[in-house]
């Protein structure tokens, strides 16, 4: 974006503006575009979810407001705005007020490092991934604040559940990303995407692979296991079925948002859908190449970039359109999977959720980190790092050996851990029986 504006102002119009003015214009423009796009994403996603789930349930879904009901979310938004804002008498008014704000703000910050297409990232931070996850955990504070301030037992239970869930599922999410970071050696989200060019094999693992933009991490054993673990953790982080425990409507009414109405409730809703969108987007970016896809790399090579200032501006547009298309297609696919899961599965119980996170996902992702280390050693290291025996192998051979070893390791770990996990489940069931006996004897 910055390059294109620089090109337009200084080369096409020849105004000769300084760098800081270009940057200012670029950031203002990007911020404005993002603030227009983000709420519309949320509006579209609610409509999309309702229509998709209606098809799964043999219904039609919203189809009254506008053609095919496309303006239904707008009508809902207007309703939200015009509703009375009720604050319970016993609530802590100020905390009750700022709670939704603390929940929404981080989700907006997270867009700062999200790349939409080639060269289309608001701010290419070298610790983008870390920033993304650090910021996302801030919303737990807002959840706890709003649940506590409502002075409602359901809200308090919901907030406790939300915080416990977010804290425990951040670990497998970050551990699965750690494996990917080990492989790429970079925390920049843009670097992560450029790493994934190639055709089933990443061009940075094996030089000379034709670039079809398909060298996604999900095609490696390390990336596949990380993807499964990360997506499950993302479901828990985004409070989606089967992990929508903090707002379990059949148990604790609406969890931490029980005492919210009007636009404050709308803000929670906004935060949730935006967070879901972001989690789907980051899944698409890290494991499915983001904007990578057939053709984008070639188009972007002809465009105006820092490396190629003499490129053609038309190719910027073409590469951008195609890249954004690939990116959004993948993101919406993952959102559809979330909707699909919601249409099919029941909810887990909070203790089952914790068991699953701590006893299965975390050990599995830890093994995956070791696998990633082996992968890096076999594909990248040489005599200088103490791995002289791989020095003479062809890159493809090194890749194949790493693939087989990590695949075997991950499979063994998976089957072993699942066995241990189900045994511990049985033991826990026995423990519950003891508790039950003690309680019935008391009564």
């Amino acid at each position: 974006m910055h390059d294109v504006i620089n090109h337009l102002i200084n080369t096409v119009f020849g105004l000769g503006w300084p760098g800081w003015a270009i940057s200012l214009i670029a950031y203002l423009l990007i911020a404005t575009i993002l603030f227009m796009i983000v709420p519309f994403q949320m509006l579209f996603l609610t409509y999309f979810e309702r229509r998709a789930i209606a098809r799964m349930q043999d219904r039609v879904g919203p189809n009254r407001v506008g053609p095919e009901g496309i303006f239904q979310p707008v009508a809902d938004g207007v309703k939200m705005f015009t509703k009375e804002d009720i604050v319970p008498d016993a609530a802590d008014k100020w905390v009750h007020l700022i709670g939704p704000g603390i929940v929404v703000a981080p989700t907006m910050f997270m867009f700062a490092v999200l790349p939409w297409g080639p060269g289309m990232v608001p701010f290419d931070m070298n610790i983008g991934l870390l920033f993304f996850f650090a910021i996302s955990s801030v919303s737990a504070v807002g959840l706890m604040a709003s649940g506590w301030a409502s002075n409602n037992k359901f809200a308090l239970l919901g907030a406790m559940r939300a915080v416990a869930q977010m804290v425990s599922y951040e670990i497998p999410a970050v551990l699965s990303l750690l494996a990917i970071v080990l492989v790429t050696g970079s925390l920049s989200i843009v670097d992560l995407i450029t790493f994934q060019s190639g055709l089933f094999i990443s061009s940075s693992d094996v030089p000379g692979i034709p670039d079809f933009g398909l060298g996604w991490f999900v095609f490696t054993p390390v990336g596949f296991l990380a993807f499964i673990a990360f997506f499950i953790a993302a479901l828990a982080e985004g409070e989606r079925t089967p992990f929508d425990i903090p707002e379990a409507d059949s148990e604790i009414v609406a969890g931490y948002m029980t005492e919210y109405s009007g636009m404050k409730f709308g803000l929670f809703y906004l935060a949730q859908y935006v967070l879901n969108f972001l989690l789907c987007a980051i899944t698409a970016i890290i494991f499915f190449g983001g904007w990578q896809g057939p053709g984008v790399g070639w188009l972007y090579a002809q465009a105006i970039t820092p490396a190629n200032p003499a490129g053609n501006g038309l190719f910027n547009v073409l590469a951008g359109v195609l890249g954004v298309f690939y990116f959004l297609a993948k993101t919406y696919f993952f959102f559809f999977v979330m909707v699909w899961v919601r249409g099919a599965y029941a909810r887990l119980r909070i203790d089952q959720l914790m068991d699953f996170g701590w006893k299965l996902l975390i050990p599995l992702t830890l093994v995956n980190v070791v696998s990633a280390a082996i992968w890096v050693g076999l594909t990248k290291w040489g005599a200088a790092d103490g791995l002289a025996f791989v020095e003479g192998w062809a890159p493809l051979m090194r890749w194949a050996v790493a693939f087989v070893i990590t695949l075997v390791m991950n499979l063994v770990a998976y089957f072993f851990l699942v066995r241990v996990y189900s045994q511990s489940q049985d033991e826990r069931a026995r423990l519950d029986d003891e508790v039950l006996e003690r309680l019935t004897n008391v009564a």
Partner: protein
Amino acid sequence: MLKTEELQINIGPQHPSTHGVFRMIVTVDGETITDLKPVFGYLHRNHEQIAEVNTYLQNMPYTDRLDYFNSMANNHAYALAVEKLVGIEVPERAEYLRVLMVELTRILNHAGALGFLINDMGAWQTQLAFGMREREKILDLFESASGARLMCNYFRFGGVARDLPPDFMPRLKDLLIAMPAFVDEMERLLRENEILLQRSENIGVLPKEVAISYSVTGPMLRASGVPYDIRRAEPYSIYDRFDFDVPVGAVGDVYDRILVRIEEMRQSKRIIEQVIAQLPDAQGGHINPKARQNVRPPAGDVYARVETPKGELGFYLVSDGSLKPYRYKVRAPSFINLTPLGDMCRGYKVADVVVILGSIDIVMGEVDR
């Protein structure tokens, strides 16, 4: 040791999953239930007292409102009670029509109940929508036969209100052909879904002895391992002519209740097939023409009971020889099945309470009369 405090929560009367206006005072230690007190009576509408100022026939539509899911079965129990009191003969064809309607009721009730139960477990209405779809098909049949979908008011003393319309049988046969696919689908969903298994296995266990001492009946009792079905134990109407099995559970948990209900749907289908095969082709034989509807029974009392989809529904009527019952008492299965709720929930988590409540399959119209 960390000092913890018990928290008391009111689940209900306004709560999304209490199946009406039902209240549970739950004491929790963290998320574990240490005590639960069911509170009912929010839907009390003086049913039994009102019935005493109505004539016997006027009470027939009123029984529909007890358990509005299964109005046919309620009608059946009441008709049996009055017929026993007065001594009315029921023609052969009418008996078959009654059994047909009541068994259809059983299928629709279980389809709906399983859908609601999975909804309580947190699925987002998909399974409920599919259960309701099957229920609608049966309600269409009820509508064609009785003129109403929910409050059928189809039974009369000495038979049923009207004979079947001509297109009823072909539609019923189509329904029976399509039914096994739905039941198999539901069973596959419940047996193969890891999350549903985790949420239902060993949850809300009701041991055999406790169930008997609470006089629990219906699928709840059978899931606890007691093969007690009034259709078998004390055959009323013409149930002694049919060949069907009484499914029994092993543990008495939520999962067993689900499986018992699924199997009962299959057994009901078997009974309906036998009804279709044996149905006497006597048009107009749907009611005893000599039976007076405005009955004046001799002084005395009677208790008649049937196996509704929810359990034993009994009507106790006392007559003083007038046109109106002197005493009209309902033994409602939902109400009595609900009493062991506290024992079933103790020691489980908050999330299990709604699942256990859903597995009892209550209708508040019947609990608070």
